[in-house]
């Protein structure tokens, strides 16, 4: 659980581990029924509707562009026209 939570960047409390643990185990038992289903030679479906790769010209579409200001309007923290985040790299020792 803690490994998967780490992969998902989700801090879990001990209480959550106690609750989710059995629930997720129960769900995994439930989905394990798929083992009964023969899928040898069956292709995997990612998209059900017939589709092909869509290309478009790489040009600006001003009608759907956000202004700099609008793009930052929802930022939890912004400074000098950028998103501000906590330290990413450790200080050199």
């Amino acid at each position, binding site marked *: *659980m803690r490994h998967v939570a780490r992969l998902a*960047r989700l801090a879990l409390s001990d209480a959550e581990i106690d609750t989710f643990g059995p629930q997720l185990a*129960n*769900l995994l038992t439930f*989905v394990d*029924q*798929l083992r009964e289903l023969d899928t040898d030679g069956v*292709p995997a479906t990612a998209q059900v*509707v017939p589709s092909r790769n869509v290309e478009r010209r790489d040009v600006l579409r001003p009608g759907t562009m956000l202004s700099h200001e609008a793009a930052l309007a929802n930022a939890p923290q912004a400074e000098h026209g950028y998103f501000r985040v906590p330290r990413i790299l450790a200080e050199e020792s």
Partner: protein
Amino acid sequence: MDPLRDSAAAIAAAVNRREMSARAIADAVIPHVERVDAQVDAYLQLTPELMRVQADRVDARIAAGERLPLAGVPVAIKDNMCLLGTRTTAGSKILGNFVAPYTATAVQRLLDAGALPIGKTNLDEFAMGSSGENSAFKMTRNPYDLGRVPGGSSAGSAAAVGGFAATISLGSDTGGSIREPAAFCNVVGFKPTYGRVSRYGLIAFASSLDQIGPFARSVEDAALAYDVIAGKDPLDATSVDRPVEPTATDLPRDLRGVRVGIVKEFDTGELGGAIDACYRRAYDDLVALGATLVDVSLPTAKHGLATYYLIAPAECSSNLARFDGVRYGLRVDGADVGEMYERTRASGFGPEVKRRILIGTYALSSGYYDAYYVKAQKARTRIAEDFARAFERCDVIASPAASSPAFGFNAKSDPVAMYLMDYYTIPVSLAGLPSLSVPCGAVVPEGGDRPMPMGLQLATPLFTERALLGYAHAYEQATQHAEKLAPVEAVR
């Protein structure tokens, strides 16, 4: 014309003929909705200023000689769709203060067609749930029994239309999130073929399944809304580039020559005597309209839930990775960026969203990817093939829309018990088919004291929306089930 009760078709006709102004409609609807919503809590946010501004704009366009298909029609928007300048939360604390910087294509098309936005409706957080109870903000109540859930995830959109607090609303359906709440709230809920309606501006849950569709109190109104919102959008590469046949015109009155598939594996007897009788009567009514019943088999459908609860969480875990406290939404500070991510997500997401992120992350993780995710994708192929084979023998498949009528609050504490509500809708979603729920009667639930609405699910082959809506219209006009129930007195 009564803008609080009448159909979208009647409202638009009156406004186009200038018998009533859109502004007069907005002024009548706003206080009515406020009164109803004090009981139902369908809305997270009302937008009366926007509604009046839009009404004046519609009146100006009508005065200039335009005719608009939804002129003056009051609409509600599920709060996982962006509407410029309004708070758009997806029912989650993590987006509690997010203000949409643009408008979703489906919403824009409604506005361009003359609709008036009443507000944004409540939903299960990120559209994950079947009762509305997973909203981080409030519990929407069923207008037909305030002690019961409205269904989910499009809880508020279904309850608003069912409670006469909107004429039409938009919902989104990933595994049943339009059809199940429609069944619970005595309304028509229509999920078009995957790709028919642009997802641009819809907050993503499971991108290979998500589809926007309308709620309405009649099939004709749902068709009217569909005709407005459907069609290719250059801003959504998965929207399908195919002509959209108008569906709201020349709807048929009977089902002569139509072969209705009844799924052998969907034994309604298991749902209890009253529910079984309700569906048997519905199938008989189809026959009375000239249809022939055909037994069809969907042998893989019983694996639909297991397939869905791998694919949808996998896609959700990937889509919801964007909520990291950097560009928008909640941020909870930490010593470094990693701690900030983990704390933000721990604090911003509710339990059901966390469960699905964990399951999805696990199913996609190294060593389990083939056994879970790829296996589910193969099962999805087999489910879609089952439907294709069934449609060689029938034109439309009829089944329950949900496993029971609306249940009480806190009645389903086990997640898997909740998932079983969508037993009939999920296989259809995995196959991408157009599908709807139409009212088909009422059943007194176990422990209940008043009859609650039931929904008949109809599903047809890919891209056959016109045929599907036609069958539903013929059934609806002959049976008129929705008319036989009224919301509770406090809501009227």
